[in-house]
């Protein structure tokens, strides 16, 4: 199968270029960029000057298999991903039970096979994500785990963590942690400050993130492990991250799209779809995080896709589940940063596609000959109003319900195969 993308605005974050031209795909790989002649037998896709970028590699997606398939299955998540321009899902192990043995990883891998998008799995760093004993990191690597994380659960025992880090370092495994001091953030529903005080909600200082990050970075320095912080959302965490990188530690950091596009005031009158982990921050933190993505200090933008059913959200704010679905809204929301003049398309796709692929050692995220033809074609300007009930996810807990978005995915390709088309739906 040969595809000829004609007259596309090619976003290539690896080369940091944005050119208008053609792109040839054959046998699942990008073969040539910039050629002029249509090869014989090729299917021509007229891009009409719209954007063609490497598909998103979404680092940290919660899928409810095993255990909570009513909230999200591999199938529903894949459909949502395809519709959102996400071509590789990096699934989190915070399932029920956790993915913490080669056997459970094998189960998940089988369930995830033959979906329209690529799905790779992370495994738990400690058994049951409980922070007491490390998992079989070697076996799990052999079984295909791309990284090790206890997701939202923070290990409090530094000894356990230091051993897990040391062991992971020997195997060159990537460890992903959620930087947070759990003692300080226990019970918190929002970020402390004026808004938390006004709403009478228990708040946590952003300093809890700094403290968690400080500890993790000290352990990373001690052990030499390859470390990634899943979400850095506070301005106060950034200097610590900057110092660690300057000191040559093998550390990277991510941020969720919500923390880049929303702030604590969006919670308004106790809207539980805006309850996230960590909680939404002040506007100054949001702007600092955007700037850090621009400078490359924060490497990765992810969806932090976390499905929750209606029942777990239709509760008083403190009792409601945290998290939001975002596979399908990640790209349109990211376009807010582009239209707002905060980030260029190259900066965005560096963080959405290239950097997560690089960090995980995947060949995706590039727009060059020889790379997998995982591509997203989108119109950065097309406006629409989001209706949460039209999302492909089984769970509809998006904070963008009813929001005016600008930027729409038109088609998604994985390995040179079209897995989504905006037209088919109309």
């Amino acid at each position, binding site marked *: 199968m040969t595809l000829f993308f004609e007259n596309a605005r090619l976003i290539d974050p690896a080369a940091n270029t944005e050119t208008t031209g053609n792109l040839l795909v054959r046998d699942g790989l990008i073969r040539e960029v910039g050629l002029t002649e249509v090869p014989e037998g090729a299917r021509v896709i007229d891009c009409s000057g719209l954007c063609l970028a490497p598909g998103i590699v979404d680092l940290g997606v919660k899928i409810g298999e095993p255990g909570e398939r009513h909230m999200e299955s591999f199938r529903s998540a894949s459909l949502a991903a395809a519709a959102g321009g996400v071509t590789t899902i990096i699934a989190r192990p915070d399932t029920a039970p956790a993915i913490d043995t080669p056997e459970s990883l094998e189960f998940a891998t089988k369930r995830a096979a033959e979906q329209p998008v690529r799905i790779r799995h992370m495994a738990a760093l400690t058994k049951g994500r409980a922070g007491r004993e490390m998992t079989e990191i070697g076996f799990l690597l052999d079984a295909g785990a791309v990284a090790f994380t206890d997701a939202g659960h923070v290990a409090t025992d530094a000894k356990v963590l230091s051993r897990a880090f040391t062991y992971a370092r020997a195997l060159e495994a990537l460890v992903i942690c959620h930087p947070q001091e759990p003692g300080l953030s226990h019970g918190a529903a929002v970020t*402390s*400050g*004026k*808004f*938390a*005080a*006004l*709403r*009478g*909600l*228990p*708040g946590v*200082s952003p300093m809890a993130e700094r403290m968690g990050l400080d500890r993790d970075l000290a352990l990373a320095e001690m052990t030499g492990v390859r470390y990634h912080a899943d979400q850095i959302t506070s301005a106060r965490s950034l200097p610590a991250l900057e110092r660690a990188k300057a000191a040559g530690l093998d550390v990277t950091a991510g941020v969720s799209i919500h923390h880049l596009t929303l702030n604590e005031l969006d919670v308004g*009158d*106790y809207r539980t779809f805006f309850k996230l982990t960590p909680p939404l921050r002040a506007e100054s933190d949001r702007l600092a995080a955007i700037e850090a993505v621009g400078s490359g200090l924060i490497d990765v933008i992810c969806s932090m896709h976390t499905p929750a059913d209606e*029942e777990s959200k*239709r*509760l*008083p*704010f*403190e*009792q409601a589940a945290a998290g939001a679905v975002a596979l399908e809204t990640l790209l349109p929301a990211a376009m807010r940063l582009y239209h707002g003049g905060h980030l260029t398309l190259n900066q965005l796709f560096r963080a959405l596609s290239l950097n997560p692929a690089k960090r995980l050692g995947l060949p995706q995220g590039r727009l060059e000959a020889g790379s997998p033809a995982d591509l997203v074609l989108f119109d950065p300007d097309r406006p629409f109003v989001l209706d949460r009930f039209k999302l492909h996810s089984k769970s509809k807990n998006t904070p963008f319900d009813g929001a005016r978005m600008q930027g729409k995915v038109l088609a998604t390709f994985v390995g040179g195969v079209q897995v989504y088309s905006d037209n088919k739906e109309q």
Partner: protein
Amino acid sequence: MAFRARHLLGIEHLAPEEILTVLDLADRYVDLNRRTVKRTDALEGMTQINMFFENSTRTQSSFELAGKRLGADVMNMAMQNSSVKKGETLIDTALTLNAMHPDLLVVRHGASGAVDLLAQKVNCAVVNAGDGKHEHPTQALLDALTIRRAKGRLHGLTVAICGDVSHSRVARSNMLLLGKMENHVRLIGPPTLMPSGFGEFGVDIYEDMRAGLKGADVVMMLRLQKERMDGGFIPSEREYFHRYGLDAEKLGFAAPDAIVMHPGPMNRGVEIDGTIADDITRSVIQEQVEMGVAVRMAVMDLLAQNLRAERGRAATENLARGTFV
């Protein structure tokens, strides 16, 4: 301007004129409540349900009495021993009650925002009788009425709110109301019981009680919950009383004619000296209780008027469309 609100969920969304409307009507109900025959027919035929998910004797009986004096059929539901225990969600409970067609729902709940959530799901008027650490609007209104009657005005006063501000919905509602009416609000308490962020509300924050009380016209004490006394937030009960308990010596820093208030129930010897609480020349604590019934009557009367008007409009529209429902 009249009182336009559909529900009374908090002080935050009330306009100063609406607050004054409530207080003016409450003044009239104070007079009524002092007569031998205390009944009116403002809520005649209407049903009021008191749903208290948290224990309360004082507030619940105040609302019950208010409803009965207005002629409503009042039902009390002790939610602690109800279907909530069997796992029913707040919204399901609300929908169940809603199907019984109450006109007024008085709700107290332990979670901030729970009453807002419930109000979205029912088609009667909802009164927030305290939600978590968020708001307790009728308490702030009755405090305002007490202050206005004692001081002759409700503006330009210096009001010191002292104690456990952090866990207090009373403090939040009072701070908002007194701010809207252009008073100087001071918050006094140990920093462990003072939420970060309150400094941005245009109030002054004091850690030293004597400095905070200096020249205050109104001293409003807050209750310190027993469970917060054991080392978590403050070192001990006796150290708290020593530093933040209201006694004659500390009260001496306030204005000579300062009044002393407390939302009750009091912990004598913890946040307030018994002799101060009982000093009828300074303490207006009993008046607060009296004003409570009158204010709640006024609030429910106004909400019922709005409810009637809304239903009347709906009926007229139906009539105009030729649909009789």
